[in-house]
Protein backbone atom coordinates (compact mmCIF):
# COMPACT_ATOMS: atom_id res chain seq x y z
CA UNK A 1 0.00 0.00 0.00
CA UNK A 2 1.49 3.40 -0.89
CA UNK A 3 2.07 5.75 2.10
CA UNK A 4 -0.68 8.20 1.11
CA UNK A 5 -3.16 5.41 0.70
CA UNK A 6 -2.08 3.93 4.05
CA UNK A 7 -2.56 7.27 5.76
CA UNK A 8 -5.99 7.63 4.20
CA UNK A 9 -6.88 4.08 5.29
CA UNK A 10 -5.82 4.83 8.87
CA UNK A 11 -7.78 8.07 8.93
CA UNK A 12 -10.91 6.39 7.64
CA UNK A 13 -10.45 3.45 9.99
CA UNK A 14 -10.18 5.80 12.94
CA UNK A 15 -13.41 7.46 11.82
CA UNK A 16 -15.03 4.03 11.35
CA UNK A 17 -14.04 2.75 14.79
CA UNK A 18 -15.28 5.93 16.48
CA UNK A 19 -18.77 5.73 15.02
CA UNK A 20 -21.33 5.16 17.75
CA UNK A 21 -23.86 2.40 17.19
CA UNK A 22 -26.77 4.86 17.49
CA UNK A 23 -25.50 7.12 14.70
CA UNK A 24 -27.39 5.29 12.01
CA UNK A 25 -30.38 2.99 11.84
CA UNK A 26 -30.33 -0.16 9.73
CA UNK A 27 -33.69 -0.44 7.97
CA UNK A 28 -35.93 -3.07 9.58
CA UNK A 29 -36.30 -6.12 7.37
CA UNK A 30 -32.80 -5.83 5.94
CA UNK A 31 -31.40 -8.46 8.30
CA UNK A 32 -34.18 -10.91 7.44
CA UNK A 33 -33.52 -10.40 3.73
CA UNK A 34 -29.79 -10.83 4.21
CA UNK A 35 -30.21 -13.95 6.35
CA UNK A 36 -32.43 -15.53 3.73
CA UNK A 37 -29.74 -14.84 1.13
CA UNK A 38 -26.81 -16.11 3.23
CA UNK A 39 -28.52 -19.07 4.87
CA UNK A 40 -31.09 -20.48 2.45
CA UNK A 41 -33.33 -23.25 3.72
CA UNK A 42 -31.48 -26.52 2.95
CA UNK A 43 -34.68 -28.34 2.07
CA UNK A 44 -35.76 -25.67 -0.39
CA UNK A 45 -32.34 -26.02 -2.02
CA UNK A 46 -32.77 -29.78 -1.96
CA UNK A 47 -36.09 -29.40 -3.82
CA UNK A 48 -34.40 -27.28 -6.47
CA UNK A 49 -31.50 -29.67 -6.92
CA UNK A 50 -33.86 -32.70 -7.01
CA UNK A 51 -35.76 -31.18 -9.93
CA UNK A 52 -32.60 -30.55 -11.94
CA UNK A 53 -31.17 -33.93 -10.95
CA UNK A 54 -34.26 -35.70 -12.28
CA UNK A 55 -33.76 -34.21 -15.75
CA UNK A 56 -29.98 -34.60 -15.85
CA UNK A 57 -30.21 -38.12 -14.36
CA UNK A 58 -32.68 -39.19 -17.03
CA UNK A 59 -30.41 -37.83 -19.79
CA UNK A 60 -27.43 -39.63 -18.26
CA UNK A 61 -29.09 -42.97 -19.07
CA UNK A 62 -28.03 -42.31 -22.65
CA UNK A 63 -24.41 -42.66 -21.56
CA UNK A 64 -24.66 -45.16 -18.72
CA UNK A 65 -27.68 -47.42 -18.36
CA UNK A 66 -28.81 -48.23 -14.80
CA UNK A 67 -30.25 -51.62 -13.82
CA UNK A 68 -30.94 -52.35 -17.49
CA UNK A 69 -32.92 -49.14 -18.04
CA UNK A 70 -32.11 -47.92 -21.54
CA UNK A 71 -34.79 -45.39 -22.59
CA UNK A 72 -32.66 -44.05 -25.45
CA UNK A 73 -31.96 -47.59 -26.74
CA UNK A 74 -28.25 -46.95 -27.16
CA UNK A 75 -25.90 -49.74 -28.15
CA UNK A 76 -22.91 -48.37 -26.29
CA UNK A 77 -23.00 -47.79 -22.54
CA UNK A 78 -20.39 -47.21 -19.88
CA UNK A 79 -21.97 -50.14 -18.03
CA UNK A 80 -20.51 -52.56 -20.60
CA UNK A 81 -17.08 -51.09 -20.08
CA UNK A 82 -17.35 -51.16 -16.27
CA UNK A 83 -18.48 -54.79 -16.48
CA UNK A 84 -15.55 -55.70 -18.71
CA UNK A 85 -12.87 -54.11 -16.54
CA UNK A 86 -14.17 -54.90 -13.05
CA UNK A 87 -16.91 -57.52 -13.07
CA UNK A 88 -20.56 -57.28 -12.13
CA UNK A 89 -20.27 -56.23 -8.45
CA UNK A 90 -17.77 -53.51 -9.08
CA UNK A 91 -19.78 -52.38 -12.09
CA UNK A 92 -22.77 -51.72 -9.83
CA UNK A 93 -20.61 -49.68 -7.47
CA UNK A 94 -19.16 -47.66 -10.37
CA UNK A 95 -22.59 -47.17 -11.94
CA UNK A 96 -23.92 -45.72 -8.67
CA UNK A 97 -20.84 -43.55 -8.29
CA UNK A 98 -21.00 -42.30 -11.87
CA UNK A 99 -24.73 -41.61 -11.74
CA UNK A 100 -24.62 -39.52 -8.58
CA UNK A 101 -21.23 -37.87 -9.09
CA UNK A 102 -21.99 -36.60 -12.58
CA UNK A 103 -25.69 -35.81 -12.44
CA UNK A 104 -25.73 -34.49 -8.89
CA UNK A 105 -22.50 -32.61 -9.64
CA UNK A 106 -24.00 -31.00 -12.75
CA UNK A 107 -27.10 -30.05 -10.81
CA UNK A 108 -24.89 -28.41 -8.19
CA UNK A 109 -23.57 -26.07 -10.87
CA UNK A 110 -26.96 -24.36 -10.85
CA UNK A 111 -26.56 -23.43 -7.18
CA UNK A 112 -24.74 -20.43 -5.74
CA UNK A 113 -22.12 -20.73 -3.01
CA UNK A 114 -24.59 -20.14 -0.17
CA UNK A 115 -26.97 -22.80 -1.50
CA UNK A 116 -24.08 -25.25 -1.78
CA UNK A 117 -23.16 -24.48 1.83
CA UNK A 118 -26.73 -25.21 2.86
CA UNK A 119 -26.65 -28.58 1.05
CA UNK A 120 -23.27 -29.34 2.55
CA UNK A 121 -24.59 -29.02 6.10
CA UNK A 122 -26.74 -32.11 5.49
CA UNK A 123 -24.75 -33.77 2.74
CA UNK A 124 -24.93 -37.34 4.06
CA UNK A 125 -28.65 -37.21 4.72
CA UNK A 126 -29.49 -35.45 1.48
CA UNK A 127 -27.27 -37.70 -0.65
CA UNK A 128 -28.79 -40.79 0.96
CA UNK A 129 -32.30 -39.50 0.27
CA UNK A 130 -31.40 -38.56 -3.30
CA UNK A 131 -29.93 -42.07 -3.85
CA UNK A 132 -33.03 -43.77 -2.47
CA UNK A 133 -35.34 -41.55 -4.52
CA UNK A 134 -33.31 -42.39 -7.63
CA UNK A 135 -33.60 -46.11 -6.88
CA UNK A 136 -37.36 -45.72 -6.38
CA UNK A 137 -37.58 -43.94 -9.74
CA UNK A 138 -35.63 -46.75 -11.45
CA UNK A 139 -38.00 -49.27 -9.90
CA UNK A 140 -41.01 -47.25 -11.02
CA UNK A 141 -39.73 -47.26 -14.61
CA UNK A 142 -39.31 -51.05 -14.62
CA UNK A 143 -35.76 -51.70 -13.37
CA UNK A 144 -35.14 -55.04 -11.67
CA UNK A 145 -33.56 -54.26 -8.34
CA UNK A 146 -31.70 -57.18 -6.77
CA UNK A 147 -30.48 -57.09 -3.12
CA UNK A 148 -26.66 -57.10 -3.24
CA UNK A 149 -26.50 -55.04 -6.42
CA UNK A 150 -28.76 -52.40 -4.92
CA UNK A 151 -26.55 -52.16 -1.84
CA UNK A 152 -23.41 -51.83 -3.96
CA UNK A 153 -25.08 -49.23 -6.16
CA UNK A 154 -26.24 -47.29 -3.10
CA UNK A 155 -22.71 -47.28 -1.62
CA UNK A 156 -21.32 -46.03 -4.93
CA UNK A 157 -24.06 -43.40 -5.13
CA UNK A 158 -23.31 -42.18 -1.60
CA UNK A 159 -19.60 -41.83 -2.38
CA UNK A 160 -20.37 -40.13 -5.71
CA UNK A 161 -22.88 -37.75 -4.13
CA UNK A 162 -20.52 -36.66 -1.36
CA UNK A 163 -17.65 -36.25 -3.83
CA UNK A 164 -19.81 -34.14 -6.12
CA UNK A 165 -20.99 -31.85 -3.31
CA UNK A 166 -17.49 -31.38 -1.94
CA UNK A 167 -16.02 -30.93 -5.44
CA UNK A 168 -18.67 -28.43 -6.50
CA UNK A 169 -18.28 -26.49 -3.24
CA UNK A 170 -14.49 -26.29 -3.47
CA UNK A 171 -14.61 -25.33 -7.13
CA UNK A 172 -17.20 -22.63 -6.48
CA UNK A 173 -15.25 -21.31 -3.50
CA UNK A 174 -12.20 -20.86 -5.74
CA UNK A 175 -14.12 -18.67 -8.16
CA UNK A 176 -16.30 -16.74 -5.71
CA UNK A 177 -15.16 -13.84 -3.59
Amino acid at each position, binding site marked *: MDPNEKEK*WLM*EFSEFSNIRSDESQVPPGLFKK*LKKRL*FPNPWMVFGKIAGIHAVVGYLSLAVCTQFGLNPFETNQSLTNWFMKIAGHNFCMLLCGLFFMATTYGLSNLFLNLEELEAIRRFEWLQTAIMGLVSLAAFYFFGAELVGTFVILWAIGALIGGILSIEGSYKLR*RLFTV
Partner: protein
Amino acid sequence: MHEHLRAKSDEELMEAYQMGSTPAFEMIFERHSSRIMAFLSKRMVQKGSPEDTLQEVFLKLHRSKHLYEKNLPFLPWLFSITRSVMLDSLKKRNLEDAVELEELDRLEAKIPESDLSQSPDEILKLLPEAQRNVVTMRVLHEQTFEEIASKLSTSPENARQIFSRGIKKMRTAFARKEDKDGSK
Protein backbone atom coordinates in the same frame (compact mmCIF):
# COMPACT_ATOMS: atom_id res chain seq x y z
CA MET B 1 -30.65 -14.06 20.55
CA HIS B 2 -28.24 -16.39 22.32
CA GLU B 3 -27.29 -14.50 25.49
CA HIS B 4 -24.01 -16.35 26.02
CA LEU B 5 -22.73 -14.88 22.73
CA ARG B 6 -23.05 -11.32 24.04
CA ALA B 7 -20.10 -11.86 26.34
CA LYS B 8 -17.90 -13.07 23.49
CA SER B 9 -15.39 -10.87 21.71
CA ASP B 10 -15.68 -10.19 17.99
CA GLU B 11 -12.75 -12.51 17.36
CA GLU B 12 -14.42 -15.35 19.30
CA LEU B 13 -17.66 -14.74 17.41
CA MET B 14 -15.80 -14.94 14.10
CA GLU B 15 -14.27 -18.22 15.16
CA ALA B 16 -17.72 -19.58 15.97
CA TYR B 17 -19.04 -18.21 12.68
CA GLN B 18 -16.24 -19.95 10.79
CA MET B 19 -17.42 -23.18 12.41
CA GLY B 20 -20.89 -22.55 10.97
CA SER B 21 -22.67 -20.81 13.87
CA THR B 22 -25.53 -18.70 12.51
CA PRO B 23 -26.22 -17.03 15.91
CA ALA B 24 -22.59 -15.82 15.92
CA PHE B 25 -23.25 -14.15 12.57
CA GLU B 26 -26.42 -12.57 13.97
CA MET B 27 -24.43 -11.13 16.87
CA ILE B 28 -21.75 -9.73 14.52
CA PHE B 29 -24.49 -8.11 12.46
CA GLU B 30 -26.15 -6.67 15.55
CA ARG B 31 -22.87 -5.21 16.80
CA HIS B 32 -21.52 -3.71 13.60
CA SER B 33 -24.28 -3.12 11.05
CA SER B 34 -25.14 0.39 12.35
CA ARG B 35 -21.50 1.41 12.31
CA ILE B 36 -21.08 0.19 8.72
CA MET B 37 -24.35 1.82 7.71
CA ALA B 38 -23.28 5.17 9.20
CA PHE B 39 -19.89 4.99 7.47
CA LEU B 40 -21.45 4.11 4.11
CA SER B 41 -24.17 6.74 4.42
CA LYS B 42 -21.54 9.45 4.94
CA ARG B 43 -19.45 8.35 1.99
CA MET B 44 -22.14 7.44 -0.47
CA VAL B 45 -24.22 10.60 -0.51
CA GLN B 46 -26.27 10.38 -3.70
CA LYS B 47 -23.96 7.62 -4.94
CA GLY B 48 -25.84 4.36 -4.80
CA SER B 49 -27.70 2.80 -1.95
CA PRO B 50 -25.94 2.31 1.42
CA GLU B 51 -28.51 -0.41 2.26
CA ASP B 52 -27.53 -2.47 -0.78
CA THR B 53 -23.86 -1.91 -0.09
CA LEU B 54 -24.36 -2.97 3.54
CA GLN B 55 -25.79 -6.25 2.27
CA GLU B 56 -22.84 -6.66 -0.07
CA VAL B 57 -20.45 -6.07 2.85
CA PHE B 58 -22.01 -8.90 4.83
CA LEU B 59 -22.15 -11.11 1.76
CA LYS B 60 -18.42 -10.57 1.26
CA LEU B 61 -17.80 -11.15 4.96
CA HIS B 62 -19.70 -14.41 4.68
CA ARG B 63 -17.81 -15.53 1.60
CA SER B 64 -14.42 -14.55 3.03
CA LYS B 65 -14.94 -15.85 6.55
CA HIS B 66 -12.56 -18.77 5.96
CA LEU B 67 -9.78 -16.23 5.24
CA TYR B 68 -10.08 -14.56 8.63
CA GLU B 69 -7.26 -15.40 11.05
CA LYS B 70 -8.50 -15.52 14.61
CA ASN B 71 -5.31 -14.08 16.13
CA LEU B 72 -5.82 -10.83 14.21
CA PRO B 73 -8.19 -8.08 15.42
CA PHE B 74 -11.59 -8.26 13.80
CA LEU B 75 -12.47 -4.58 13.38
CA PRO B 76 -9.70 -3.63 10.89
CA TRP B 77 -10.56 -6.73 8.88
CA LEU B 78 -14.24 -5.75 8.81
CA PHE B 79 -13.28 -2.20 7.86
CA SER B 80 -11.11 -3.44 4.98
CA ILE B 81 -14.05 -5.41 3.63
CA THR B 82 -16.41 -2.45 4.07
CA ARG B 83 -14.04 -0.06 2.35
CA SER B 84 -13.29 -2.38 -0.54
CA VAL B 85 -17.00 -3.13 -1.16
CA MET B 86 -17.80 0.59 -0.96
CA LEU B 87 -15.05 1.51 -3.43
CA ASP B 88 -16.19 -1.24 -5.82
CA SER B 89 -19.72 0.05 -5.58
CA LEU B 90 -18.62 3.64 -6.22
CA LYS B 91 -16.49 2.50 -9.15
CA LYS B 92 -19.43 0.62 -10.61
CA ARG B 93 -21.60 3.65 -10.07
CA ASN B 94 -19.01 5.85 -11.78
CA LEU B 95 -19.03 3.55 -14.80
CA GLU B 96 -22.78 3.89 -14.92
CA ASP B 97 -22.31 7.64 -14.71
CA ALA B 98 -19.72 7.59 -17.50
CA VAL B 99 -22.31 8.52 -20.10
CA GLU B 100 -23.38 11.44 -17.94
CA LEU B 101 -19.78 12.54 -17.52
CA GLU B 102 -19.15 12.35 -21.25
CA GLU B 103 -22.12 14.58 -21.69
CA LEU B 104 -20.66 16.87 -19.06
CA ASP B 105 -17.40 17.13 -21.01
CA ARG B 106 -19.36 18.10 -24.11
CA LEU B 107 -21.22 20.73 -22.13
CA GLU B 108 -17.99 22.11 -20.75
CA ALA B 109 -16.69 22.41 -24.31
CA LYS B 110 -19.83 24.27 -25.32
CA ILE B 111 -19.31 27.01 -22.74
CA PRO B 112 -17.33 29.74 -24.46
CA GLU B 113 -14.01 30.21 -22.69
CA SER B 114 -14.31 33.94 -23.06
CA ASP B 115 -17.42 33.87 -20.89
CA LEU B 116 -15.59 32.07 -18.13
CA SER B 117 -12.55 34.29 -18.25
CA GLN B 118 -14.33 37.61 -18.76
CA SER B 119 -16.99 37.49 -16.12
CA PRO B 120 -16.43 34.50 -13.87
CA ASP B 121 -17.76 36.21 -10.77
CA GLU B 122 -21.03 37.03 -12.45
CA ILE B 123 -21.49 33.46 -13.66
CA LEU B 124 -20.35 31.89 -10.44
CA LYS B 125 -22.77 34.00 -8.44
CA LEU B 126 -25.52 31.89 -9.93
CA LEU B 127 -24.31 28.83 -8.02
CA PRO B 128 -24.78 27.77 -4.40
CA GLU B 129 -21.65 28.19 -2.30
CA ALA B 130 -20.46 24.56 -2.36
CA GLN B 131 -20.78 24.33 -6.14
CA ARG B 132 -19.20 27.76 -6.58
CA ASN B 133 -16.15 26.72 -4.54
CA VAL B 134 -15.66 23.45 -6.42
CA VAL B 135 -16.12 25.02 -9.86
CA THR B 136 -13.71 27.82 -8.92
CA MET B 137 -11.06 25.39 -7.73
CA ARG B 138 -11.50 23.15 -10.77
CA VAL B 139 -11.91 25.68 -13.60
CA LEU B 140 -10.06 28.77 -12.44
CA HIS B 141 -7.36 27.20 -10.29
CA GLU B 142 -7.17 23.98 -12.35
CA GLN B 143 -7.02 21.70 -9.34
CA THR B 144 -7.64 17.97 -9.58
CA PHE B 145 -10.69 16.37 -7.95
CA GLU B 146 -8.36 14.67 -5.47
CA GLU B 147 -6.96 18.04 -4.39
CA ILE B 148 -10.43 19.55 -4.16
CA ALA B 149 -11.68 16.57 -2.20
CA SER B 150 -8.88 16.80 0.34
CA LYS B 151 -9.55 20.54 0.85
CA LEU B 152 -13.26 19.95 1.37
CA SER B 153 -12.76 16.75 3.42
CA THR B 154 -14.87 14.72 1.05
CA SER B 155 -14.29 12.03 -1.54
CA PRO B 156 -13.09 12.82 -5.08
CA GLU B 157 -16.30 11.23 -6.37
CA ASN B 158 -18.37 13.64 -4.32
CA ALA B 159 -16.31 16.61 -5.51
CA ARG B 160 -16.85 15.48 -9.10
CA GLN B 161 -20.57 15.22 -8.44
CA ILE B 162 -20.76 18.75 -6.99
CA PHE B 163 -18.75 20.06 -9.96
CA SER B 164 -21.06 18.24 -12.36
CA ARG B 165 -24.13 19.85 -10.81
CA GLY B 166 -22.50 23.27 -10.86
CA ILE B 167 -21.59 23.00 -14.54
CA LYS B 168 -25.11 21.86 -15.38
CA LYS B 169 -26.57 24.83 -13.59
CA MET B 170 -24.21 27.16 -15.44
CA ARG B 171 -25.14 25.59 -18.76
CA THR B 172 -28.82 26.19 -18.07
CA ALA B 173 -28.03 29.81 -17.25
CA PHE B 174 -26.04 30.16 -20.50
CA ALA B 175 -28.85 28.63 -22.51
CA ARG B 176 -31.32 31.12 -21.02
CA LYS B 177 -28.93 33.98 -21.66
CA GLU B 178 -28.48 32.89 -25.29
CA ASP B 179 -32.25 32.65 -25.74
CA LYS B 180 -32.66 36.13 -24.31
CA ASP B 181 -29.87 37.54 -26.52
CA GLY B 182 -31.36 35.81 -29.56
CA SER B 183 -34.82 37.17 -28.98
CA LYS B 184 -33.53 40.78 -28.67
